[in-house]
Structure formats: C-alpha cells, structure tokens
C-alpha cells in the first residue's frame, strides 16, 4: 500500500462528502427498499415482520403486473428499434453535406428539449381515436382527409396496441437524440475509408453495411443503453398521455409501483416492484459497464 502523503489526504478529503452522500442516499436507500420488499408492510403504519419472498411470488402472480411486464418488453423493443432505425437514417441523410444541414439538425433534435409531460399531452390529442358521433381528430383525421380511412385505429384506447401508441410518442421525442449520437459517430469516420471503398467498387449500401455500421457499433451500444434505461423506467409519459389505460393496455411497472404504494398503501409490494425494476436495469447496464471498464483498462 502506498504511503499516506499529503496529496492523498487532500484527495480523500475532497472525495469524502460525495462518497458518503452517495453511499447513504443511493446505496443505503436501495438496500432499505430491498429490505422493505421482504416485509409485511401492507398498510400505512410500517410492519417490519419479515415475509420472505412472498411479496415477489404474489407480484408475479398478479395479473396487472404480468400485463405490465409484457408492456415493458413490447415498449422497449418498438421504442429501441424504431429510434435506432430512424436515428441512423436521419444521420446518414444529414451526413450528405446538404445545404441547411444546421436547420434540419435542430428540427430533428428539438423534440428532445421538451419534457415527456408535454409530449404526452400533445400526443394524447394527436392519437385521440375520436368517436363515430363526434368525428375523428388528430392523426385519424389526417388519415380521413388523405382517403386512408382504413388505417384508422383506436390507438391507445385499443387494448391490443395501446402501448405501441405510447412508444410512437417516445420515439418521436428520442429519435432526434439518437440521430445526434450517430451523426457524431459518422463525422469521426475519416473520408479516406469511404473513398477507398468507392475505389474498390463498393456500392453506397455496401459502404453503409460493411464500413459505417461496424465502425458505429460502439455508438449503437451507447444508444441502446441510454434508450433502454429510459424505456424501462418510463413513467411521466404514461401519466401525461394515457394513465394505466383500458385494461392496463398502457400500464407500466413504474406506474403500478406508484399506484400500489401511495394509493393502495401496499408499501412492501411497491418496494418489490422497485427492486424488480432495478434488477431489470442492472441486467441491461452492468455488462456495458464491465465492457467499458475493460476497454479503458486495455487502453
């Protein structure tokens, strides 16, 4: 062990407040929540009798939670895939050195500066299904005017596709951000590589497929991590846009957690949902952290 010299003391002193605060307010509270999830705390006054894993057993048997998990999976897939595809496409188009690039870049990036609450309210109206008596509104009205009436659906009021409607709103907001990440990645690729490929007779598609995409792999990974944890934790958008929805069509675990804890007083169940959410995010993030720490160590 290295000797405690003055500089080490200073650095420890400077770090200590942050480390202590994080230890208590992040890890301490995570531990506390996990502990609460193992108790019988089922009303307003705490009851810390240990109940083992029974809260988790009941939770996974709960119909609403099963629907929530399915919604999370569907939402994550739709949101991630469409964000990546739209983001990459926009980035490649913008990378063609077109005129007014700055303008388009701002337009695509703009939704990201809006809060999910605003997005939710706006898209609630855009995707409002309307009714036969009152006529269509929003996108359905647009379909009507374009003579595409057969495309009209109930959007988030349709139990089968409700969560996809929410994913559309989230995609609208976050695909510009994905574009920005890809654009930064593309700009870092030297032109020589593309020119060399063109000299070798590669088509534009082949350049994208065999040159750009492999080089952009770390960007894709980062985007997946950022978007993935947003989609697992999504809450504000759902609150503003739809609530739990018809038959919980647009319900998500975070909403259920809030509902059951603060309306239903099922504190232990709420803590169990929080713990499950944490584990889900950890499954996504930890391999990435390990990977990036290793890469850094190699450098």
């Amino acid at each position, binding site marked *: 062990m290295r000797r405690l010299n003055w500089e080490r003391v200073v650095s420890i002193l400077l770090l200590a407040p942050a480390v202590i605060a994080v230890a208590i307010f992040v890890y301490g509270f995570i531990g506390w929540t996990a502990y609460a999830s193992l108790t019988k705390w089922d*009303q307003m*006054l705490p009851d810390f009798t240990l109940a083992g894993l029974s809260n988790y057993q009941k939770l996974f048997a709960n119909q609403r939670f099963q629907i929530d998990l399915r919604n999370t999976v569907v939402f994550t897939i739709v949101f991630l895939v469409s964000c990546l595809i739209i983001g990459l496409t926009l980035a490649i188009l913008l990378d063609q050195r077109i005129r007014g690039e700055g303008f388009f870049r701002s337009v695509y990036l703009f939704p990201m500066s809006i809060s999910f609450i605003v997005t939710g309210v706006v898209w609630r109206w855009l995707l409002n299904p309307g009714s036969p008596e*009152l006529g269509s509104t929003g996108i359905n009205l647009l379909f009507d005017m374009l003579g595409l009436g057969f495309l009209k659906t*109930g959007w988030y009021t349709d139990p089968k596709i409700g969560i996809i409607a929410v994913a559309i709103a989230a995609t609208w907001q976050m695909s510009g951000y994905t574009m920005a990440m890809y654009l930064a990645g593309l700009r870092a690729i030297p032109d020589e590589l593309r020119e060399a490929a063109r000299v070798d007779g590669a088509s534009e598609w082949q350049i994208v497929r065999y040159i750009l995409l492999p080089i952009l792999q770390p960007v894709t990974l980062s985007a997946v991590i950022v978007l993935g944890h947003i989609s697992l934790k999504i809450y504000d958008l759902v609150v503003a846009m739809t*609530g739990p929805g018809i038959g919980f069509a647009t319900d998500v675990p975070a909403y259920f957690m809030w509902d059951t804890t603060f309306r239903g007083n099922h504190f232990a169940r709420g803590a169990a949902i929080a713990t499950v959410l944490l584990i889900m995010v950890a499954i996504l993030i930890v391999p990435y952290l390990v990977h990036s720490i290793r890469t850094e160590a190699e450098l």
Partner: protein
Amino acid sequence: MKKLVSLIMIMAILAVFVPTAFAAPPAQKGQDYIVLAGDWLAKIANKYLGNPYAWPAIMALTNQKHLTDSTYATIINADLIEPGWKLYVPSKDEAEAFLATYDKNKPEMLYAKGAKGQLVVGSWWTAGGEAEGLNGMFKIYKAKYPDVQIVNATVAGGAGTNFKAILKTRLIGGDPPDTFQLHAGLEVEGYSPEQYLEPVDAIYASEGLEKVFPADLLSLLKYKDHYWGVPVNIHRSNVLWYNKKVFEANNLTPPTTFEEFKTVAEALKAKGITPFVLGTKDGWEAGHIFEDVLAGTLGAEKYKGLWTGATPWTDPGVTQALENFKMMLSYANPDHSAHTWDSAGEYLIAGTGGMMIMGDWTNGWFTSKGFDGYGWAPPPGTKGIFVALSDSFALPKNAPNAENAQNWLKVCGSKEGQEAFNPQKGSICARTDCDPTLFNEYLQSAMKDWAVDAIVPSVVHGAAAYESWVTDYKDVITLFVANKDVAAAQAGLQQACVDAGICK
C-alpha cells in the same frame, strides 16, 4: 506550490459551507409595515429582507407580536393579507434565526404560541369552494374561542395523497396535529385508531349528534364500537345525470331499472347520440360506476354485506351486476379511456351524449361550465338508496391542544358549522336539520333523499373498505372494462376480498 493550491481549494469549499461568516449583514432593525393594496407576503419579504422565501418569518413574528399588542394583525392564511393590516417585518438577523429552525411541514410554527394555545387543523382542502367552506368554519370557531390561534395546516394534493404521507410520519413520530381530515368510514382502519387516535364518543353524547345524524351514517362511522371522527359533509356517489333537452326531444324519462336503461339507450343510439357517456382515464371512474351498479342490482342490505363478509362475492347477484355493467358499457363512447369523467361530460353538455353516472360534484362542475340543461335521477335500481361518502375530522392521541381540538369537533358537528361549510363545498350536511334554503336546487333534493334513503358506503371514496382493498377492487374493474370477462372479474373481486382478510 501544489500544497498551496490544495489549501486554497479546501478554504473555498469551507467558504461554501459557512457563508455567513464572510458576509456581514447590513445593519437593519425590525420595523412595522402597513399592508398596501397589491402586497403579498413574499413581495414584502423580498423588498425588506432581500429574499422572497423569508415570508414565513414575517408571518410568524407578526402573529407573535399580536399576542401582546392587538394592533398587529393575525395572519391565518399566508395567501390572504388585507390592506391596512399592521405587520411586523423583522430584521435580517431575526428572520434568519427563525428560518434556521423553521420546518415547512409544521405550519404551526408560523403562528404564535399563546397562553390559550393553538388549534392545528390538518386537511387537504386548499382550493376553491373547499377552502372557502373551511374558512367559514374557522370564523365560527374564532367567534366562540377568540383567544385560540387557528393554524390552517393544509397540504395540497388530490384526495390527500401528500397530506396523508406527512400526517403518517407525524403520527408515528408522536408529533400529531390537533385534528385532521379523514374520510368517514373504514379508511380509519389504516391509521390503527386504537394506537393513534382518541375515540370521540363523548362529543357525540354531549352534542346530541346521535339524534341528528341518520342511523345508517352512525353505524358506518362506528369502528370497533367507537366513533373516531365527526363528519362535516356528505357527497352522493349514485347520481345519473342526463341532458334534459335530449331526453325531452326524444320523449324519454330517466331509466329506473336496467331494462329501462337498455330501452332508453337503444332509443338514443338510434338517433346517433352516445347513450352512456364515460371517461375512465384516471382509473377510478369505472369502479365508481360499478359500485352504483352493485347497489342497484343487489339492494342496500346485500350491498353493505359485500364489505363485511355477509354477502359472498360469489353470489349470483354479483354476476348479475357484472352483466348489467357489461350491458351499460356496450352503450358507452368507445374512446372512454382517452377521457376523464369531466372531459367525457362535455359530450353531455354538447348534447351528443345522453346520460352519465358520477358523484354530485358534477353539479358544481356543470355550474362552473355555465350549463343548466341537466337533470338528475338515481341510477337504475338505486331509488331509495344513497351511496354516500363523507369527510370527517379526527382527534389524534397526545394532541398538543386536545381541548381546543374537541371544541373544533363540536363546531364541525354543529348546525351552524355545517351550514357554513357545505353550501361552499357543494355538498350537503351530515345532519338532517340544516336549512335547505341555503343550498341550490340539486343539493336540496339530495338533502330530502339523505333524510329518508337507506345509506350505504361508497367503495372508491374510502367509506366501505380500506384503501388496499379499494385499489385491488379498482384494478379488477379496470381489467373488466377492457375484456368484459364476467367470470374472471368475479373471481378477481372474490380474491381481493380474501386478500383483504374479510372473505375466506
């Protein structure tokens, strides 16, 4: 050199944590201030103390001065100061000393600690008619007990979500307010009343409340053979609202049975009018309507039995109720999950919708919309049944000013107290002897029913069952609205009852 830099950095960090040591405050003394039109506390605080967030110091120290010198005003509501009032604006030092100890979860710190003590009233009535009604009761209390400082400890937040969280920590921590708002009925169970609350049976006896509240209400208020609160108001859950013009134009009358509901709905549908206007976005509305359908199908006695275990949830009557509800849903607007009850109510106002079922706060909403073409009737099967919800005030154990709180509960139960509160809140008196002329036409009709109807508790609004059961019940109904699976819903309702520990 490096050492020096580190030292400077440490000094800088210390300076952030101990800023007062370096910034000497300008000399300034406390002064009197006469309120002008257009003043508010934060504005005065900003002008004289350089910090709008220092307003609590002005409020607390003015109230303190009032004790010894009555030319100073008493500020009960921080948002309400009137021109001409004399306030005390403290010096910066005084203000900072106060703010250092001030805890915004303890509003009683804003009020003077007088010889006769305070009365800390906890509630979630912060807006509109509710706050005005509460102030009306404060005035009556103030006239009777002028020496007591009333502390209006409201915490904003729908249905008291935030308020309850703060209240809970205060109860557990042995630092309760003197009295607090509580939904009448089984919600009291969540507070472990035997441990944390004082029974108020003595007030019922001394004020003769058992004679002026309907017997059904009394049995609803009793938990473990004691009364735990005094109700101030009553809302009705089961009201069917309809558009008069639409009904007259089609020669229809409000349906009294589920069969008639179907006939009326068909007639409206044939005219291209949405028969049954519904909004389910907030998750509780469908549960609210279903409680009225349950009462209408099962009748008052069997409905009450559902919440005590006397009527099993496997009863064929429950199956029938679910079938009736399913029939009604088939006449609802298809976009109901996109609407709250009030945004769906716009259909009814516009005349494109015929009927809706919602509590009697709808009356106030129609009025605020300037719409008067509405009529009301009990929903199918509930004639002679009053599905009720009520707010009451309770008395915690170890209340610091228990005597003042008991006097407050007496005001809550009194005729004048209820007459001051309810016309403002848009509810009716829990007492049956209030003066009807103080109330509008709808509330007068509700008062007549209140005196004679069978009273049963509302589920969704906390009277019939405790909250954990209520949320499970709501979840089942939310699923039912989507999949209309009667058998699954009935099994779910039964399971909720078992989880609540009532059914076996």
